[in-house]
Structures are given as C-alpha cells and as structure tokens.
C-alpha cells in the first residue's frame, strides 16, 4: 500500500503542471477512482523496479568496468535463497495486483439493478444512440449525473468498441450479439467517446461526446427535441405488425408459440435438452434463426425474420419483450 501512497502523492504533485501538459484523463465516473488507484500502484511498481534495475546496472557498469585487458574476474555463486527471493517476491506482488484488479473488474462488470438502459448501435462509422423514452441521437450521448446508466450495444456491420476514457469504461460492440457496459457519471461535463476497435477507413472519425447533465437539465433535454414513442411501445407495434402476436399470445393464454411474458432473464430448457438463459442475444437468435431456439412442446414452424429487421427494430422488439417480463414480475408480486 506504500506504493499507492507514493503513486498518488507523485501524481498529485504533477497535478499542478497538468493544466499545461495533461498527463491524465478526466476522472468522471464512480469506476474511474478505483481504476486510477490500481494504475498508480502499477506505476509505482514499474517505476520502482525499473529504477532499481537501471541503478544497479549503472553502478555495476562503473564499479566493475574492465581495468586490464586480461583481467579475470572472481567467481560468484548464485545462492538459492536469492533466486527464490526474486522468484517469490514478484509472484506475491502479482497475486496482490491480480486480486485487486479482478475485484474491481467483477464489481464493474455488473450494472446496478436501478440502471437506466440506453441502446447503442455502432455502424461504419457512427454511433446511433436511442433512449428508452424515445429520443435518438448520433455520436452524442446525454446522460444524467449520479445515476447508473447501462448501455446495451450492438453493431450493424463489423466489430466496434465503445470507449469513454473519462469513465474508464470500454467494451467491444459486436454484430449479431449484445454487449453491455455501465457507468455512473460523477461530474457534469463533456467527455470524449471513441471507437477503440479498428473498424475500417474512417475508424478515427467514429468519435463523439458524452454530455453529463444535472437531473433537471437531463429531464429538460428529454422533454425538448424530437418526440418519439418509447422503445417498448415501438416494439409492441412491430410485434403486432409482423404478426408475432398471433402465435406468441399474452400471459395465461395458449398460442401456437410460447408466451413471451416473463420469459426474459429466465433459464429455458430447449428441445435438445440444453438449457439457455433468455437474454438479448438469445431473443435476437430466436428471431433470425428460429430453428436453433426450439422449446419442447412447440413445432418448428416459425419463419425467420433474417434480413427483414433493422438493428434498431430488433432492439425495439427486445425492449418490448423485456417490458413484458417487467410487467409479469410486477403482476406476480
């Protein structure tokens, strides 16, 4: 822990010069502080060992320089204790770092239950963002301060990566799959969004801004601008428009297909005996490749909707299925 202390004080002294010559990104989420502390520890370890090795080498270079061409140096032995020491001490340091880093990672991997879910679609070379309440934006993300936000992300083409350095969060955005990341912004301000996975010609222009707003500003922003219906409402329209509702009837009724009420987040047994968690990716798979998601007691008759839905419509359907789950759970209790 001495390292942390050294690292932090060192960086704080640098802080004065930081305005002229920034060496540190802004620190604007609940996650950032923990990551930075670990970063300082690692910097401390790196500086300590590098300085150690460099100084020893310089000292030996001068002290033991060759003084005569035919000099024969004395023999030295490698004591086992020394070898063990410099095997075991680095191991111990690594163990500490591993547990610390993993603790932070696992903690940061789980969004809090109360998170607001915002949807992100990456495409060459822009970010489409849709709020559950309806507003859409491109390359901009407005979020309220001090409130956990979960991003559910997918890509329309290649792999992208959603990266907000100020929050110390990053996650690849994959086609045909949903990944998520979450953060809770702590400071009102404007921060960079980057695509951090190479995605083609204009990869470096796939950038944008996060606007962290006070709750009142955020509410005002949601109320202003274009007014769309909420995502789950759009999903519900699609659900009947595409004819899904004719087979997937509501809760309590029996249809040609299984009821989707309350199915989200459950573990379902397939007809081949395997068990799968119903998540965003599985719902998507059921829509584009229904034969691969077969529940027992139902016939394999659902047509594929592959190529008929945009990624945005897909997200709306998923949002709708999720909302069914939410209602079901509420009704159940």
């Amino acid at each position: 822990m001495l390292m942390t202390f050294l690292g932090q004080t060192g960086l704080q002294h640098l802080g004065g010069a930081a305005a002229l010559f920034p060496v540190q990104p802004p620190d604007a989420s609940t996650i950032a502080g923990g990551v930075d502390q670990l970063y300082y520890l690692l910097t401390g370890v790196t500086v300590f060992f590098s300085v150690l090795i460099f100084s020893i080498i310089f000292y030996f270079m001068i002290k033991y320089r060759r003084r005569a061409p035919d000099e024969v140096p004395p023999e030295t032995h490698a004591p086992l204790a020394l070898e063990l020491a410099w095997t075991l001490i680095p191991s111990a340091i690594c163990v500490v770092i591993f547990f610390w880093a993993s603790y932070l990672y696992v903690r940061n991997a789980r969004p809090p239950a109360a998170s607001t879910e915002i949807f992100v679609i990456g495409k060459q070379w822009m970010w489409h963002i849709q709020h559950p309440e309806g507003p859409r934006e491109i390359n901009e993300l407005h979020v309220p301060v001090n409130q956990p936000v979960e991003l559910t992300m997918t890509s329309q083409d290649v792999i992208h990566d959603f990266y907000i350095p100020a929050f110390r969060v990053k996650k690849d955005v994959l086609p045909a799959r949903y990944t998520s990341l979450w953060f809770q912004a702590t400071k009102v301000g404007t921060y960079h969004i980057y695509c951090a996975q190479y995605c083609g010609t204009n990869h470096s222009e796939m950038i944008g801004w996060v606007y962290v707003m006070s709750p009142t500003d955020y509410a005002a922003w949601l109320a202003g601008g274009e007014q769309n219906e909420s995502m789950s409402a759009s999903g519900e329209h699609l659900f009947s428009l595409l004819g899904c509702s004719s087979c997937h009837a509501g809760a309590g009724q029996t249809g040609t297909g299984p009821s989707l009420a309350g199915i989200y987040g459950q573990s379902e047994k397939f007809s081949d005996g395997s068990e799968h968690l119903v998540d965003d990716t599985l719902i998507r798979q059921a829509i584009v490749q229904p034969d691969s998601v077969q529940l027992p007691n139902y016939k394999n008759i659902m047509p594929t909707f592959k190529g008929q839905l945009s990624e945005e419509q897909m997200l709306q359907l998923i949002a709708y299925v999720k909302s069914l789950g939410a209602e079901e759970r509420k009704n159940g209790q």
Partner: protein
Amino acid sequence: MSDAATDHAHPPGFAHQFETIEQQREAGSLGMWVFLMTEILFFGGMFTAYTVYRALHFGSFEAGSHLLLWKFGMTNTAVLIVSSLTMALAIRSAQTGQKKGTTITWLILTMILGAAFIGIKLYFEWYNDWKEGLVPGLHWIASPEHTPGVEQFFCFYFFMTGLHAIHMVIGLGILTVLVIMTARNKFSPEYYAPLEISGLYWHFVDIVWIFLFPLLYLIGGRYQH
C-alpha cells in the same frame, strides 16, 4: 543423396552432417514426429473450431450429420485400416531384408487402398452432396431442412474431410516415390528410414480419419432414424 555418393566408407543414404547412421535414423524419426506434432495442431485448430460450433449449434450439427452416408464413412474407415496394415507390412518387409518385389507389392497395395478411399469419398459422397446442393459456398440449395446451421456443419465436413483428402493425396505421392526408390534398391535392413518415416505419416492420416468418422458421421447417434 548426392552427399552420400561422395563418401564410400558409409552405408548408402548416409548424409555427411551426421556422425553415425544411427544418429541419422534417430534424427529422421524425431523429425517426422516433430512434424506430426505440427500436424496435430494444424488439424487441431480445425477440430477446436468444430467443437465450439458443435457445442453451440448441437441440433444443427446433429441434423447435418444425419444427411451424411454413414455406410461409406464406415467402409472408408475400414479401407484406411487395411492400408495401414499393408504399409506396416511393407516397412517390415524392407526391415527384414525380403525381396524388393515383396516390399513393392505391399506399397502398391497401400496405394490402391488409398486411391480407393479417395474414390469412394469423391464419387459416392462428395459428388452426391453436390447433386443434392449440400456444398456451402459453391452449390448450396437452402430449404427448411438445409438451415444455416446445417450449412455450417457442411462447411466443417468439407474442410475437414478435404484437408484429410489433401493429406491422402500427398501420401500417395510419397508412396510413389517410395516404390521407385525400392525398385532402385535404395533400401536395406541397414537403411530404410524413408520408408519408416513415410509410414509414420500414413498412419497419422489414418488416425485423423479414425476421429473424423464418429465426429462427423455419428453425431447424436443414429438410433432415431
């Protein structure tokens, strides 16, 4: 081989960089085994990808497997096992100093069996798959039976059996060279290393098929049908 001709003190086939013929034989054998390690990982990459998709899309792989003709798969397994036996006997014949005609007979028998394997594969299986539109990327006829998952299974079926068949063809080439070398009296009980290490290769190709047969033809068993 030209190295050997210059040094008459050594047995035929002896290469100058070695100290003894035994060292050369051990080096050759180890070299082949190291090459087979590479081959195991080469096929292994394919098997890994296969295992992942089989695990993720088990139903489709099962359905795809049931479209294959297991009788030909089984026949070909037997054909390859016989060819491994004849290969082993060819080596044994050179090793024990039998007449070169005996060695050549076993080698040619091995070649015939290898060619039979490829023939069965090509005519009764691949040609049939082509007619039925089961060749992904080149001739795939989508239908309710031929789902994208089944297509993926057939990708692996063709890549794996194709890669195996390429190895068989290379093996036939090697066997041809061996027949010529035997006919030219290159081998003796002291020096038959090329035969031995080619045998290792041939048996390896056989082993790959021993795994391919159940993994491709018998997924999920055949008892439902």
